[in-house]
């Protein structure tokens, strides 16, 4: 923050999204927004870093020299491999009756120049790749070859809007991770990998721009993005 390195620690909870404080100034920050909500730096916002939510298997193939956070032996018993269904069972304290989604429905949330949109995970996983437009920006949301990882790109090649599709596999009933995963663009029929780069065809060597996106529960996304729209198709 302004050239100063801040170190954060867990400091509380705000409607099931945690609060952290920095050791340097004691300012309170909201996890999901990265905004300083109270204290000396109130009004400031941390810069969001592009990150991915991937399976270890997918990441391993993409990052052969990557490093993995080692488990802390002392706390290894506290790590819950089954965190996803376990967290889904926890109660919620805020709800948005009248919205078409349930509190614990998982969504992919993204914002393009302050316009927020949520993509229900189930719809997305069924339809992937999803082509959409938010605030004039053409988007490509795609589920990875493992059926669990996801990424969002600006679907534009050389400043031209592009359409993408996954080449169909005849084993339609096979689990997602067993299917062949071939992403093609409709204009040049080039083949693209899950990192958004063309690996063969006329577009070879080109890469799509990434869009930061967050996998979140609907109640949490909706709470911090009250004007969010929901993708429907």
């Amino acid at each position: 923050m302004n050239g100063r390195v801040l170190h954060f620690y867990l400091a509380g909870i705000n409607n099931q999204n945690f609060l952290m404080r920095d050791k340097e100034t004691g300012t309170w920050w909201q996890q999901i927004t990265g905004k300083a909500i109270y204290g000396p730096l109130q009004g400031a916002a941390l810069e969001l870093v592009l990150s991915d939510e991937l399976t270890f298997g997918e990441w391993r193939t993409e990052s052969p020299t990557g490093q993995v956070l080692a488990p802390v032996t002392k706390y290894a018993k506290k790590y819950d491999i089954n965190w996803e269904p376990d967290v889904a069972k926890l109660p919620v304290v805020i709800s948005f009756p009248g919205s078409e989604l349930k509190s614990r429905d998982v969504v992919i949330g993204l914002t393009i120049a302050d316009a927020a949109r949520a993509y229900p995970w189930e719809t997305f996983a069924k339809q992937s790749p999803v082509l959409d437009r938010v605030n004039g920006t053409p988007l490509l949301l795609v589920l990875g070859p493992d059926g669990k990882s996801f990424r969002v790109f600006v679907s534009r090649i050389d400043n031209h809007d592009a359409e993408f599709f996954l080449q169909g596999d005849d084993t339609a009933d096979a689990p997602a991770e067993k299917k062949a995963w071939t992403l093609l663009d409709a204009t040049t029929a080039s083949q693209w990998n899950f990192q958004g780069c063309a690996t063969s065809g006329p577009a070879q060597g080109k890469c799509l721009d990434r869009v930061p996106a967050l996998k979140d529960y609907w109640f949490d996304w909706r709470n911090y993005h009250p004007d969010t729209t929901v993708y429907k198709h």
Partner: protein
Amino acid sequence: MSTSSPSAQLPQNQPDRRQPDRQTSRWIWILFFLCAVAAIGLFFIPAFIIRPFRYQAPRALLLAMALRQRAPLGTLIAGVACFVLAFVLWRTAGRWRKALLVLALLVVTFSTIMAWQNYFEWMFHPIAGPQFLAQSESNLDPKEMILAVRFGSDDRAYPISQMAYHHVLNDVVGGVPIAVTY
């Protein structure tokens, strides 16, 4: 010289002296009560508002953060004042009032100690010095979900099962200081 003491000088005033004493002592009790309420409130009000699985109203949350921000110093000052006042009150207090003083001091002490602690980190311990493994050394299941960042040629993965417990991790990747949260 003992004659300089007011009680020795004015023994006839003794009955009158008791009256202001009672008055003063009442004020000291009130002051003690206020200090105790301040110390206890500075810890318990934010702790009550920021409870997990409870709704936090925006104004209540602001109050909680404002009190919590001031709690370490506030409880210390109020706590010390409580002890000084209790010391003054002790000699004249009856048995029940002594018990009340002790009880109040215990709660005040507890509040002061807690205001200097971060009990959220008792529940979810932070990682002091994160250690990393080459991906080939990791025992993670290929299906486990991770958070990944890349800066230049530096790739790092943070298993979600670990981050869902620790919640916050301060790291430096490719020279960039980041806070990883889940």
